[in-house]
């Protein structure tokens, strides 16, 4: 299995200064929007049936980061979420666990306890999520707090303002600092908020910037804006991790988040992974779904495959 250790790699010198970094990011191949969207749409027509569908549903369940990110979150809500992550379908114990539960930093300890011993990871959205508009010290304190409480994964948002105004090195330095604050125990997911980056060229540049800075995962969005994960932006990020591994030998994970609600959609994303980055990414160490409502649809589809009949929303748990 390829490593994600932030070793010195072939591209280390492009981050020497703001201008070398800009030259590198702007020298990446362009993205033709029409072609990219057409490719994503054509992969969406793959017909996944029977055994392939059963495989894909279980794989998708195992890739879900079960998430609650509300101002009203309480320990009770987080414990319920943890229980569901461990046993997504109480009627069928062969159902795989989800990959992780994802909570705000102050809920990490509760979540950690709720999933203890299950292998389910605890992820936390630190760094002044979702806006990211806070001083670096504050963001780093947020991260350290979550890591100290036991978070296995940190989901950070980049400073989109800095990125859009071309201050790439500032964004880079922040990611490096957060990665350092994660220490050796937590993996870092870097969220670009692709809906705010607006162009596909920007998404490709952000992907490379994140990977250069030591991200373990690159993630589309917070789920808090109008446009979140789409097949096209996820396809583009999969191309980026594929190309990055080809150049550096380092494998980076991908996480589309927000807006993926149905099994059918999730399976389309798995087809994108399979045919773009390849089978090496078809595993919850390298690919995740940031979705809360997706899980129930996956469970209902799984029950349908097992019993031949659709059940209904009362046959899966509400949280």
């Amino acid at each position, binding site marked *: 299995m390829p490593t994600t250790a932030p070793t010195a790699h072939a591209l280390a010198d492009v981050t020497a200064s703001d201008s070398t970094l800009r030259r590198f990011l702007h020298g990446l191949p*362009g*993205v*033709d929007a029409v072609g*990219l969207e057409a490719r994503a749409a054509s992969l969406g*027509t793959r*017909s996944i049936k*029977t*055994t*392939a569908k059963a*495989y894909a549903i279980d794989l998708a369940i195992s890739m879900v980061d079960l998430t609650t990110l509300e101002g009203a979150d309480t320990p009770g809500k987080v414990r319920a979420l943890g229980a569901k992550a461990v046993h997504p379908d109480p009627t069928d114990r062969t159902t795989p666990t989800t990959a992780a539960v994802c909570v705000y930093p102050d809920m990490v300890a509760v979540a950690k306890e709720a999933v203890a011993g299950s292998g389910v990871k605890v992820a936390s959205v630190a760094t002044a999520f979702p806006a990211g508009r806070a001083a670096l010290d504050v963001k780093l304190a947020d991260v350290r707090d979550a890591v100290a409480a036991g978070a296995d994964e940190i989901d950070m948002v980049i400073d989109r303002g800095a990125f859009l105004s071309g201050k790439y090195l500032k964004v880079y330095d922040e990611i490096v600092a957060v990665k350092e604050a994660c220490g050796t125990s937590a993996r870092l997911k870097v969220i670009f908020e692709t809906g705010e980056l607006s162009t596909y060229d920007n998404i490709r540049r952000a992907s490379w910037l994140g990977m250069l800075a030591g991200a373990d995962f690159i993630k589309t969005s917070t789920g808090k804006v109008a446009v979140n994960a789409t097949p096209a932006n996820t396809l583009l990020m999969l191309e980026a991790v594929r190309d990055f591994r080809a150049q550096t030998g380092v494998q980076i994970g991908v996480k589309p988040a927000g807006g993926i609600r149905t099994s059918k959609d999730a399976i389309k994303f798995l087809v994108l992974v399979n045919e773009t980055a390849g089978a090496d990414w078809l595993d919850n160490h390298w690919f995740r779904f940031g979705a809360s409502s997706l899980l129930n649809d996956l469970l209902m589809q799984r029950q349908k495959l097992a019993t031949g009949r659709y059940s209904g929303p009362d046959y899966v748990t509400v949280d």
Partner: protein
Amino acid sequence: MASVFEYAPAPESRSVVDIAPSYGLFIDGEFAEAADGKVFKTVSPSTEEVLSEVAQAGEADVERAVKAARKAFEKWSALPGSERAKYLFRIARIIQERSRELAVLETLDNGKPIKETRDADLPLVAAHFFYYAGWADKLDHAGYGANPRPLGVAGQVIPWNFPLLMLAWKIAPALATGNTVVLKPAETTPLSALFFADICRQAGLPKGVVNILPGYGDTGAALVAHPDVNKVAFTGSTAVGKEIARTVAGTRKKLTLELGGKGANIVFDDAPIDQAVEGIVTGIFFNQGQVCCAGSRLLVQESIHDELLDSLKRRLSTLRLGDPLDKNTDIGAINSAEQLARITALAEQGEAEGAERWSPACDLPGSGYWFAPTLFTNVTQAHTVARDEIFGPVLSVLTFRTPDEAVAKANNTQYGLSAGIWTEKGSRILAVASKLRAGVIWSNTFNKFDPTSPFGGYKESGFGREGGRHGLEAYLDV
């Protein structure tokens, strides 16, 4: 859990199409036996299974069909354009309603993947009828003067690579402008044209306006040579096109020819690489490369040659070859044993001349006609695989250093049907496109078709235009 995401088979049902054991010729609104009783078999290229037995038209049948078309012409051409439009709209809607049936039929008879017949061929077929239906009552405004007149009886000969789509390209503008039609489909793919004959009846089209004569080359030759045919339209090989041009020379018949091609797909170093790779794949592996405007010559700027080839090879490894009725199949069967033999021979010649051959690991089915997607690198302008039209899933890769060299190489061919330009620089697209001698030039895309867009070639790729407003001219006395 298995460790590989294998797609289970997802075959489209064959039961949506009912293929009769035998079919007749379609003359004057009726199905009829050939005068001499001859028949031939049509097979499914992916399995070699005989699908049906089809009447083979001879000279006497051509005579009957042209006579029927001539008789029908009087009334059909006298109809107001808005009346002709009603029939065309009706045909277009029936095609849409029966599109699943027709897509499966076309896949069975031709060997191309259901994905393509379903998502490309059939929508375009309907779109062509809709588009030309819209022109039927607006011919005064098409730019050919007031009240342009139809030519009379159109003799049309179409190829096997897009059987129904080529039929639509030929029949829709002919009928919209008030001509009547005798059409000969290719001997390996006659079925969809015969189903179309049934659609004409379903639409209540007057008898004799459309006549369909399945047969071989001699049937086509008799049709082209018939003295009472006013217009000849042919899509097919350059060799046959030249023969037709000789036959028609000196007569008053109007002629359009859509012939071979050896399209250049030019990738500059600032191209959107991932999308260029998709465009290269679409350019040469769509319909197994059996496309006259295929981008069969890839011209890559030397500076990105290795990087692009790596991407392309990785992408080809994800192509799925096999049962054309499986919805996940990307590459179907070659249309006939003859065509497979031709592709095989040309590929062997490529190897013998020193080009480097590569194909992804891929199992070919045991029966049927199959050819793995193939790349030739280290190809130069002097290689046969860079000059001759292969009409199969074989891509020749050449390099260039400057835009001028790219243009010079792209134009250095006896053909001139299509070309593609890949670059992020808009000014370069315009500068290069204006120097390319090709009928269709795509930029940052390939093999995109639309009824509003004219299509046709330069040099040995033929003359005349089909599609768009320009496509009307070939069927009007202007």
